[in-house]
């Protein structure tokens, strides 16, 4: 059971459930006090020690059902054999075995006799599920089935396991019987097919458990480095999941720090004053409370066609970490600019982004949009504000209005420009990036999820 459990836990890990060695030990302890006869009890007990959230519990239950399908007793012990063997064949065979044991050799061929003596055939004929499952597991371990990676390997592994279980005896026997036209041939064939199906199912299940999760991890790793506007529609939800994961990681890291800096120091003057009635003895202590004004973040996003995909992911990221991020005000522009913060209050993030794109999409005019921003919000920018601008700085040869960005630069704590284009494309063609860069504290490339995460990490660090 030990080994099984450890195998199971490694599968849980590949499905994104984090299980520490300490929890493995807990699970083992839990198993030792629970009743093995009751599958549900074992399942619940393991779930309680291994899964830590509702979502993880769901994944756990799925994995548990797949992994321990035919492993534990009392679960569909012989449903499979009943499907595949017609009752008549079965009774025929049983009759034969009986007569065989009595020693009547006239009915039986020698081949069948020999075959019936092998443990595999015995188990098959007696429908000894536990033994079969055990030998199946053992064989799987021998050929290291857990290393299966691709679906093309399924056939190979099935064959290897069958060989390791000793299926060749059956195969050889069938060959001989076919030549001698043996009457028990059909029965044997049915057993062979049953065994093959069983092994095939097992390999299939194992593949689903092992490879599926591993492939997902692999594609996740690739997805992080893909340029955001190249992400196929099919992978969009996957990217969203990834963003949520990154965001929760970041918010966990920074959520704690806000609290820490809130604590105050002792307020000496007040404490002394309170002590005066008690002859200067400081019976009551007073504490200074630090009042931290929340820094503000202004996000100015280009939502024109060329940058829209990046903007979308960026905004999703920003609004997913709302609870750790200081107050965010967002503005969107392409030909003109407007504040869109309220969209995000009233709608879900995805819906809000759709609305923003619909309302502000069009050809880009940076100069005009900066002008709009100046009228709208420049008075609110102070030395605590961070201004984030996301855009490719391609101004269609218009007036860049650099002086406005310079004013923002001077008034704010920092101006960060995120450009989805690779750095070497900055300043080429109609890109005004090189000029705008002179009025930014930081300018960064922000083309894929990994860079996006780095940007947000940096942002959080600087606003704490």
């Amino acid at each position, binding site marked *: 059971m030990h080994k099984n459990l450890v195998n199971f836990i490694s599968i849980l890990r590949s499905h994104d459930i984090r299980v*520490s060695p300490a929890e493995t030990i807990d699970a083992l302890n839990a198993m030792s006090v629970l009743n093995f006869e009751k599958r549900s009890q074992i399942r*619940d007990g393991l779930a*309680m020690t291994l899964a830590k*959230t509702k979502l993880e*519990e769901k994944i756990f239950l799925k994995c548990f059902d797949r992994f321990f399908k035919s492993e534990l007793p009392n679960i569909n012990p012989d449903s499979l054999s009943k499907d595949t063997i017609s009752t008549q064949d079965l009774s025929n065979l049983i009759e034969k075995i009986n007569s065989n044991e009595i020693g009547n050799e006239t009915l039986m061929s020698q081949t069948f006799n020999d075959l019936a003596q092998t443990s595999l055939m015995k188990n098959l004929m007696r429908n000894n599920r536990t033994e079969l499952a055990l030998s199946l597991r053992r064989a799987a371990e021998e050929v290291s089935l857990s290393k299966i990676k691709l679906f093309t390997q399924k056939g190979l592994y099935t064959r290897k396991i069958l060989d390791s279980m000793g299926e060749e005896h059956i195969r050889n026997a069938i060959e001989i019987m076919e030549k001698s036209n043996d009457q028990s041939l059909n029965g044997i064939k049915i057993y062979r097919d049953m065994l093959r199906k069983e092994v095939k199912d097992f390999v299939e299940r194992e593949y689903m458990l092992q490879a599926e999760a591993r492939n997902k991890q692999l594609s996740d790793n690739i997805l992080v480095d893909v340029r955001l506007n190249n992400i196929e529609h099919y992978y969009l939800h996957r990217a969203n999941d990834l963003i949520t994961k990154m965001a929760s990681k970041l918010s966990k890291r920074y959520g*704690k720090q806000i609290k820490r800096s809130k604590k105050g120091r002792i307020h000496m003057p007040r404490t002394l004053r309170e002590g005066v009635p008690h002859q200067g003895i400081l019976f009551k202590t007073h504490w200074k409370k630090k009042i931290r004004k929340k820094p503000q973040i202004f996000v100015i996003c280009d939502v024109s066609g060329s940058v829209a995909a990046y903007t979308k992911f960026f905004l999703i990221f920003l609004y997913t970490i709302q609870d750790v991020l200081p107050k965010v005000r967002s503005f969107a522009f392409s030909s003109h600019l407007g504040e869109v913060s309220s969209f995000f209050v009233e709608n879900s993030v995805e819906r809000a982004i759709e609305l923003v794109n619909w309302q502000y999409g069009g050809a880009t005019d940076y100069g005009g949009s900066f002008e709009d921003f100046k009228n709208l919000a420049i008075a609110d920018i102070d030395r605590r504000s961070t201004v984030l601008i996301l855009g490719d700085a391609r101004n269609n040869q218009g007036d860049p209005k650099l002086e406005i960005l310079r004013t923002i630069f001077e008034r704010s704590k920092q101006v960060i420009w995120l450009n989805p284009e690779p750095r070497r494309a900055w300043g080429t063609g109609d890109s005004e990036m090189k000029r705008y860069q002179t009025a930014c504290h930081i300018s960064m490339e922000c083309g894929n999820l990994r860079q996006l995460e780095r940007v947000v990490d940096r942002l959080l660090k600087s606003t704490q």
Partner: protein
Amino acid sequence: MDSIENITSSFEKHGYICSEKIATAIFLAAKLEKPLLVEGPPGVGKTELAKTAAYVVDKPLVRLQCYEGLDETKALYEWKYSKQLLYTQLLKEQLSDVLGGAIGFEDSMTRLHAFSDAFYSREFLEPRPLLRAMHEKNGSVLLIDEIDKADFEFESLLLEILSDYQVSIPEIGTIAATKIPFVVLTSNDTRDASDALKRRCIHLYIPFPDQALEERIVLEKVPQIDNNLRKKLVGFVQALRSLDLKKTPAISETIDWAKSLLLLNAESLESDLVVNTLNVLLKFEEDIENTKSNLVSILKQA
């Protein structure tokens, strides 16, 4: 608490119907001496679980209600600052006796050193719930309620207590529990508890009960109610939960509703009656309006 069946039956005796999953969790927590972290929507009986556990094992219940800003001086221990000061004032006169005959500064210091720890002894220690639970001679049931309301730092503070059942006080040393308490933590899921905390606990999620279980619970709490009506009203609440409501009715609200229906001598669920008593089940005007417009279909479902 030595077997799952015993737990189920003894909890039932004290009016708490637990599903097999809950019983398994309690059993594991007791057997492995680990804290039990109970999560779930409000009103499914998380706190009740701890209270009943205290009745079942017949040990005192020590309850710590968490809130934002809760720190160790309120949860763990505090030095009785005023008492310390008062004593120093009172003992000022004794100082000359203690130091009497001491020659020179160094000599007085050595003499004073002999008394230095007197003010940081257990007499001046004010135990708060956590420490009190450890001190309990025959063991206790410690309920840390709504842990998600407390700050992150407080969670870290709990780690030592939950894994080793001991408290470190710098001035005194480590105080270990005389008998390991049965610890229940509850959380409403407003934020995720840290991994470190979760790792140390047996994790139990209590969802809303299914029809059969809820009927049993109502039967236990309001035994006088008619069988048919009970089935109907539970079915109604179950149907309500599938709606998109601001606050879904919990078990406690089902029980309240059953009690009010009993009080009104209701025999069946008439739509007038339901409309008039809906405010027992639902706590937002919006939800009530929403339900009223769907009333016919919900009643049919129930």
